[in-house]
């Protein structure tokens, strides 16, 4: 459907071009065709104009890591609802993890996801294939076939690849395909059934803790194997100071490792489990909405993660969107499922770092756009950029709009968020995928 | 609203002495009597009666204290003041004439609770009631055997008894809690 869209008067912020100026942007036939001074766009028939005065216009956000739960767990989320949530959060591309049922370790399952995304998905969905069959950690999947189907990388996420032997084989194999091995770094013997970070809060609450070393051991192992094999390694949801150090050091030595961090790990500490926010009762909360793997850590870790973002050690921000039903969460802390439904709060939550001066806006946007695009590569064209000629995936946001999070308003089926009731400053006002407006904020 | 003094220390003393005489008269002496004061101010009043009786008969009547918090018929009221005082009755009350002693006699509910408490402690031969002030407005069919002073009141008035042992002075006052006045 031919469609022309003019985004007028917004502040165009595109880290891929180091562009930061107030301008108009023209979209023709699903591509960005022109950026220039206000009012000087070439005339086009059938033109819809979006007035973006006072708003910021940037490339559509790319989420390297989310769980759409379909096939198999449709009570938690479907591709339809998950992508709607992504659109609300300003994400135009999401990479979905393969821990579905059946898992994405074979052609039929990946085809299913692709077809469903095409007919019911509201944003671009790029699949990630499993490293091992059924994520059992024993036998490699047919990686080449999965690559041909368009997976952007391989992961057994939810589970680590425990055997170093299998991991090194996976890395060797994937190297020929030029696709990254995306690892969930957790030494399961050490984490051993823990529920939250092993620290003073777990001692206070009487909960079994997951030591930071459980992540760091696997990060170190994976880096050593990446060095050994020369493969591309991408480390999911980095959460500790030690992990950041390891990745920094590895990059200094030229090892092909990239890393991502979640919005919640950048803004919440383990103390969030103790207190419900806003404080509802004068007692401990044991808030399962703050139960996530890897767990929320400490102020020191947050400082290191932010530093890692700023100096490039951490390449991208990814949500690890993990929706769950209320049955899975409305129970004893030890029994609750791990995960945060994060697509719809990610951007606003990250803006708190901008507003308090910890991170500048251009860096933040780059971690959501051109940096993840680099990791995905050019298989899907030019993502994460507003360069004319590239696909019109665009996010428009108001950096000053104040709003209060209400999980009841989520498009996602997963209402499990630790940010319920939080007041944020910064909201996505419109999301455009391939020139189509897939989300518009109608509130005032 | 000023408190109006209805009984002076001397008035109280004379009333208690008279009550002591009446107790002895009715029970034909001090044998078998146990004085049980209701917490809080009934306890020193009971002790004073015992002292008077000692002076009159040369006989030491045992004195106990009774806390009825656990026998109230309305437990939600304890939310306002959950403290329990001592119940300490030093002798077995079975077959004795127990004289309950309280400062103000009003609805009768405290006395009903006190009787339940006493019966849990043993089987008295009789339970009699001595009060310093009877202000009327009974809600239960209970009567006092010995009354220091009858003071008819209206419901929005309050009788306050001060005893030296607890309040550093002796007096009985009337307080009106009528909200229309200042």
């Amino acid at each position, binding site marked *: 459907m031919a469609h022309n869209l003019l985004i007028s008067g917004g502040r165009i912020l595109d880290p891929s071009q180091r562009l930061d100026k107030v301008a108009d942007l023209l979209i023709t036939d699903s591509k960005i065709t022109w950026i220039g001074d206000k009012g000087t766009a070439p005339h086009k028939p059938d033109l819809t104009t979006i007035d973006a005065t006072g708003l910021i216009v940037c490339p559509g956000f790319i989420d390297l890591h989310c769980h759409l739960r379909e096939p198999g767990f449709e009570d938690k989320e479907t591709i339809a609802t998950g992508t709607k949530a992504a659109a609300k959060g300003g994400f135009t591309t999401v990479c979905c993890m393969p821990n579905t049922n059946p898992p994405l370790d074979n052609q039929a399952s990946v085809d299913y996801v692709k077809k469903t995304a095409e007919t019911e998905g509201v944003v671009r969905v790029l699949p990630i294939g499993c490293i091992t069959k059924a994520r059992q950690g024993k036998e490699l999947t047919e990686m080449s076939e999965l690559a041909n189907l368009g997976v952007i990388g391989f992961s057994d996420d939810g589970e680590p690849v425990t055997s170093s032997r299998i991991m090194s084989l996976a890395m060797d194999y994937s190297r020929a395909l030029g696709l990254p091995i995306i690892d969930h770094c957790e030494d399961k013997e050490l984490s051993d059934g823990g529920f939250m970070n092993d620290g003073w809060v777990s001692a206070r609450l*009487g909960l079994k803790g997951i030591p930071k070393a459980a992540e760091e051991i696997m990060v170190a192992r994976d880096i050593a194997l990446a060095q050994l094999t020369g493969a591309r390694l991408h480390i999911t949801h980095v959460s500790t100071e030690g992990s950041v150090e390891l990745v920094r050091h590895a990059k200094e030595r030229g090892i092909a490792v990239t890393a991502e961090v979640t919005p919640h790990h950048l803004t919440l500490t383990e103390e969030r489990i103790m207190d419900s926010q806003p404080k509802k009762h004068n007692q401990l909360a*044991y808030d399962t909405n703050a139960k996530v793997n890897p767990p929320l850590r400490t102020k020191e870790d947050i400082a290191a993660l932010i530093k890692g973002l700023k100096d490039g050690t951490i390449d991208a921000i990814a949500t690890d969107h993990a929706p769950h039903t209320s049955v899975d969460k409305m129970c004893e802390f030890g029994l609750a499922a791990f995960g945060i439904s994060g697509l719809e709060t990610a951007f606003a939550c990250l803006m708190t770092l901008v507003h308090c001066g910890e991170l500048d806006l251009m860096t933040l946007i780059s971690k959501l756009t051109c940096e993840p695009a680099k990791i995905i590569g050019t298989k899907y064209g030019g993502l994460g950029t507003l360069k004319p000629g590239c696909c019109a995936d665009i996010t428009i946001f108001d950096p000053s709009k104040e709003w209060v999070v209400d999980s009841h308003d989520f498009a996602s089926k997963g209402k499990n968020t630790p940010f319920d009731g939080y007041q944020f400053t910064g909201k996505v006002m419109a999301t455009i995928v391939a020139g189509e407006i897939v989300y518009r904020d109608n509130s005032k | 609203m000023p408190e109006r003094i209805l009984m002076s220390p001397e008035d109280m003393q004379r009333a208690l002495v008279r009550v002591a005489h009446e107790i002895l008269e009715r029970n034909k002496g001090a044998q078998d009597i146990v004085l049980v004061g209701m917490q809080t101010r009934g306890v020193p009043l009971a002790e004073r009666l015992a002292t008077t009786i000692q002076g009159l008969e040369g006989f030491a009547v045992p004195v106990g204290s009774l806390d009825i918090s*656990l026998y109230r018929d309305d437990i*939600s009221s*304890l939310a306002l003041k959950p*403290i*329990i005082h001592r119940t300490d009755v030093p002798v077995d009350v079975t077959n004795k004439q127990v004289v309950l002693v309280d400062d103000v006699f009003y609805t009768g509910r405290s006395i009903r609770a006190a009787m339940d408490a006493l019966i849990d402690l043993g089987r008295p031969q009789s339970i009699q009631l001595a009060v310093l002030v009877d202000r009327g407005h009974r809600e239960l069919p209970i009567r006092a055997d010995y009354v220091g002073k009858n003071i008819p009141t209206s419901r929005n008035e309050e009788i306050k008894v001060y005893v030296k042992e607890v309040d550093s002075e002796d007096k009985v006052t009337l307080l009106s809690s009528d909200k229309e006045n200042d």
Partner: protein
Amino acid sequence: MKTTEPSSSVTTPEAFPPPSIGAWQHRHILDLDDFTREEIELVFEIADAMAEILTREVKKVPTLRGKTVVTLFYEPSTRTRASFELAAKNLSADTVSLDASKSSIAKGESLVDSLRTIQALGADVIVMRHLQSGAPYVATQYIDCSMINAGDGWHAHPSQALLDLYTIRRHLGKLGGLKAAIIGDIMHSRVARSNVWGMTIMGVKVVLCAPPTLLPRGLNSFITNCKLPNVSIETSVESALEKADVVMPLRLQIERQQSGLLPTLREYVQLYQLTEERLSLAKPHALVLHPGPMNEGIEISPEVAHGAQSVIEEQVTNGVAIRMALLYLIAGGKNK
């Protein structure tokens, strides 16, 4: 302040200033971390009155008549459950005891659903013991009636800590300035945690002593972050016991050795068992407490368990009085 001669008989407690509390503030009793000193002293005052009732021939008062107390135990327990049930019955409440291992809960009913059912049956107070730390905090978000935590996972056991403090005070006449050594599996102990709160509030110095694998890694920073300067950690039992006024060995579960936390029980016994010889390092009047049930021969020698300084049986009696006091306070405040 009156001090008393060291002796293991019950002494008159020093006269505390009368508690200056108005209404009882806690709708639930989940842990001692949010209690004030005055509130703990009030519980003791009321427990004194309840203890008097327990000396009568008819150990009953009608205070909670018409109220229903439901005990809901997800973990087996003899003494705590019986203690709560007797406490409720002594106050003339109706009691219902639910053994979660045998009921619909075992069939997979969620905690929240079970509690709502119990509440719909007319429970005024639910006394719950649960395997998972934090379960009562989830539970109380979904019920209108009151809850007393009879032990949640590793986290809290407030009535036990209160009866421990009460027992200590009855014997030693005071709490402030005493030194208490809690020895054993601190990591998994809700008794240790609640006693840390309770003892700190009452001015008792606490030494937590355990082999390193049974101490939570975050314990030191827990002490710092929660501002507990009178709590310290020891791995040497001799240091912990030195001049202690109170010694509390904790039950060591056999499973701890099986899950690899200890090389052998034998080594634990050699290093940590409370023997008469070790006990002599403490003050001569030192009391030996134990939350029960004891593993005689493991954490405590039989001689000490039944020796002159042991007040373990008295803890059980005091437990009923304390629990009567808690039920009285909770059930009375219901109509706020």
